[in-house]
């Protein structure tokens, strides 16, 4: 399979690989996918509660190059966004940015799920209702 230059760049030089302290109240963690499906993404956000802005984002992904690139790109986009702005990220924006082929669209869907799941976790930790997560 031919990967786009952007996918190769994110795969070779992934941004923001790592782990945030999930015991902190202002850190939200999303873990999506399943090992049997060949993709597991963990995406974490750290939020400045005063401004509702995402100050840090980290990921770890078990998956193909497109899955790694999708989550790496997501962490880049998340930093500096407000939580509401982050919620508006659509998987098709990831598809376009990385030029993902049709068979790899599920990687972008998983990245969107991971973002929403991390935000939901942050909300629950801070006394807000969980997000209704779409099940793909």
């Amino acid at each position, binding site marked *: 399979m031919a*990967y786009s230059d952007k996918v190769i760049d994110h*795969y070779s030089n*992934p941004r923001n*690989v790592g*782990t945030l302290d999930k015991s902190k109240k202002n850190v939200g963690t999303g*873990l*999506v*996918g*399943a*090992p*049997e*499906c*060949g*993709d*597991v*993404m*963990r995406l974490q956000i750290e939020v400045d509660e005063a401004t509702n802005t995402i100050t840090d984002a980290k990921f*770890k*992904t*078990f*998956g*193909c*190059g497109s*899955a*790694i690139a999708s989550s790496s790109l997501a962490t880049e986009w998340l930093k500096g966004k407000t939580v509401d702005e982050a919620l508006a990220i659509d998987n098709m924006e990831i598809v376009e940015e990385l030029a993902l082929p049709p*068979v790899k669209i*599920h990687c972008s*869907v*998983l990245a969107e*799920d991971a973002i929403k799941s991390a935000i939901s976790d942050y909300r629950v930790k801070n006394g807000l209702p969980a997000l209704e997560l779409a*099940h*793909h």
Partner: protein
Amino acid sequence: MLKLPIYLDNNATTPLDPRVLEAMMPYLTDVFGNAASRNHPFGWAAEEGVDYARTQIAQLIGCDSKEIIFTSGATEGDNLGIKGVFEMYAQKGNHVITTTTEHKAVLDTCKHLEKIGGRVTYLPVDELGLISLEDLEAAMTPETILVTIMYGNNETGTIQPIREIAAIAHKHGALFMTDGTQAVGKIPVDVNADGIDIMAFTAHKMYGPKGIGALYVRRKNPRVKVTAQMDGGGHERGMRSGTLNVPGIVGMGKACELARQEMAADAARLSVMRDRLQTELMTMEETYVNGSVESRLPHVANISFKYVEGEGLMMGVKDLAVSSGSACTSASLEPSYVLKALGLSDDLAHSSLRFGLSRFTTDEQIDYAINHVKEAVTKLREMSPLWEMHKEGIDLSKIEWAEH
């Protein structure tokens, strides 16, 4: 300087040995005749080349040259052998026994038989990829006309107990066929000592050209016949019509001659390299060899790296030409059915690499491959949430994953 990428996918195909090309060249140019033309020297010269090649091939597997039927390759050989026996011996029975880890050329042919009134038993394999002789014995019936079990597996290199299998088949009056594609030219295969009645094999897995293979069909004790699957001029003793691929046949003959002369030395050298590759990679945690280590082709190693994903791993080892699963299924995202038959979970099957060495593989290439794979696996594990959880002692099988 080391040329990249390094080719370690020799179970898919091998490069042509320059000595084979040299033998073929005259038959691609001056000696262009049709081997079936009996009326002029052009035909005679071609026929002479074919006859000589037939002898070279026969010598490699210990048979008579008349027992070699030329085909386009092992897929055709498997089809002709299985379908041909099914038709020829229809009066005796309709039952065929095979295994779940055969190449698709055998499995899909068997599925075809099931659609036209055949009954097929697919024997399971153990965690090493070996069938149980007791299972085989129990599966034999008076209607069993054919047992077809591959010699060495294309994905794991596991070698089945061929002689014992042949003995059981014969005891019950069935023929024994084997897909010898990966074994012939790599390890000693002797159709008489092994008790083989029919064997499909191909030139391009042993440094010969693509598009030419052979089906061994026994002529004595017992005399075996297969019904032709292609109608035409009645070439190859009526079993396979079609003008002979003379340059291909000459190349296959030369490849077999070289294999006969160099197989022992090649195998000794390659197994040392293969073992070094395997031992070095196994120094990483959570790394597993798939298939039998004891009963294995000398040039093959299939290794799984837990907690890294196969496609990501393939992208990480871009300087190596290897395959994940088998070459025939790598276009799909399905994990290898052969590895699954050994009892591997989907994720471990997904994270496997198959290394196939060749006569032309060097120590320098193996050194590079070892470091390259180690770097890729280490990098991907550092990026893998599953690896982190494993290191924290979390049992991944206890987690409720959100299936998507």
